[in-house]
């Protein structure tokens, strides 16, 4: 059984078709990323997969459960971090989590454990309204993983956060995966997708335009396959992947003039550009 399995999912908001037949699946224990610019339909898809929104058509299964009629049991198995999920502003970090250990009937020791894990233990008594954006993000993550979910959904978990917090959250996501959790995340940051995800799906205007391992996708779009050579005098030359170039490189090597040599695969950003004519950063 796959962790996530969705097939031919379509969704309309009024006249507007926001998702146009999405088919996608994720294996247990992998990190899968949904990459696309703002407005592509990422949040809509994550809401549909987690049963927060019923799709116009198509099927969604999560750990075997049919998410068009989600029962209560499934929410014990998944954790969600959505940017519109609030916290109790006047309650402390600790009390915000205490509410949920009570609801989930798990021991309060778990609160300190999770707070230490996200690095908020020192701030456990701080009311949520006094937290910085990065700290709030970590509190939301702490709440999402409190009950040891098998599948974790993260909607743009690092959007708008500083580099240090971003790195920290990346480490935490990695650790979750190491512990066997399936992670489904959305992002418009291709470095993030490349760094974290086993598989990524590129979402553009409601359709998946490309799917695979990040390196694989980049290689697939490596039409030109050029070599970039930095010579010891500081000049950079781009060489095509041909026999003449090999001859040229041999000469450089013999003359000991080569400082560095790289193959130039396109990154996800340029693949996305090529596929859609749009940048991931655009609105």
């Amino acid at each position, binding site marked *: 059984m796959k962790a996530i399995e969705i097939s031919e999912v379509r969704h309309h908001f009024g006249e507007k078709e926001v998702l146009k037949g999405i088919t996608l699946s994720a294996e247990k224990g992998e990190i899968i990323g949904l990459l696309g610019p703002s407005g592509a339909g990422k949040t809509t898809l994550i809401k549909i997969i987690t049963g927060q929104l019923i799709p116009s058509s198509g099927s969604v299964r999560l750990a075997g459960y049919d998410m068009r009629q989600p029962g209560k049991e499934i*929410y014990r198995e998944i954790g*969600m971090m959505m940017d519109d*999920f609030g*916290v*109790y502003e006047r309650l402390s970090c600790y*009390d915000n989590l205490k509410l949920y250990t009570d*609801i989930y009937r798990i021991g309060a020791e778990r609160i300190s454990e999770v707070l230490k894990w996200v690095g908020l233990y020192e701030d456990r008594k701080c009311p949520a309204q006094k937290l910085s954006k990065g700290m709030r993000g970590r509190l939301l993550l702490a*709440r999402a993983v409190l009950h040891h979910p098998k599948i974790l959904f993260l909607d743009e978990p690092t959007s708008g956060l500083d580099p240090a917090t971003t790195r920290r959250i990346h480490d935490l996501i990695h650790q979750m995966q190491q512990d066997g959790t399936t992670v489904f995340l959305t992002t418009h940051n291709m470095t993030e997708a490349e760094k974290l995800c086993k598989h990524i799906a590129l979402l553009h205007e409601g359709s998946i335009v490309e799917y695979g391992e990040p390196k694989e996708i980049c290689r697939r779009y490596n039409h030109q396959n050029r070599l970039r050579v930095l010579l010891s005098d500081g000049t950079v030359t781009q060489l095509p992947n041909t026999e003449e170039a090999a001859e040229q490189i041999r000469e450089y090597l013999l003359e000991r003039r080569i400082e560095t040599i790289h193959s130039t695969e396109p990154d996800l950003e340029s693949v996305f550009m090529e596929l859609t004519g749009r940048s991931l950063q655009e609105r």
Partner: protein
Amino acid sequence: MKNTGIIFRKTMKDTGKNIALLIQFIMFPLMAVIMENAIQIEDMPEHFFVGMFAVMHIGMAPLNVTTAVISEEKEKNTLRVLLFGGVRPAEYLLGIGGYVFSACMAGAIIFAVLGGYRGKEFIQFLLIMATGIIVSMLLGAVIGIRSKSQITAATIMTPVMMVFAFLPMLSMFNETIAKIADIAYSQQIQLLLNGLASQTAPEPKSLIVIAVSAMIAAVMFTCAYRKSGLS
């Protein structure tokens, strides 16, 4: 119903840190304490301020706090997260309601003590207060459930609150207002409280108006709840 107590405690902790709501609970009992001790005017009925402020307490605190708590949780989406956590809507509403009711009844006890009620009358006073508080809470819940944001909720709640909290007081000064106010449950509660103070039997009309109001509030609540649930 296991989560009701958890929601009760959460709401108590949270409103305990919300000065604006805390003031709602203590404002009128406190004013009654001050006025009863500070102002003595000849010919004024005994414990005049107890009756007046008790009715205002009923018209404002339960309505205001219930609306504020539910609409804030809806706007900030903390309510949705609770429901995903497995809290049932009924558990949620009972938890909130139980807390607001207890806090408002604490005020009612202060009024009863100030009014010098003892024994059977003390219980009767609290029963009348409890009835009014429950009707106000149901109205507050309807507004909270039906509103998408705190602002909308406050905009609808304020005039409702003004009518029920202030009509009884205004009706003391104006015959016409008194006639109109007759159909307001808070006005009839005031008459019941006055009756209790002056040892006169309650009029059937008072009981009917209050019973009908309670029924209407309960039906409105059920409809609001059935129609949109808590989402």
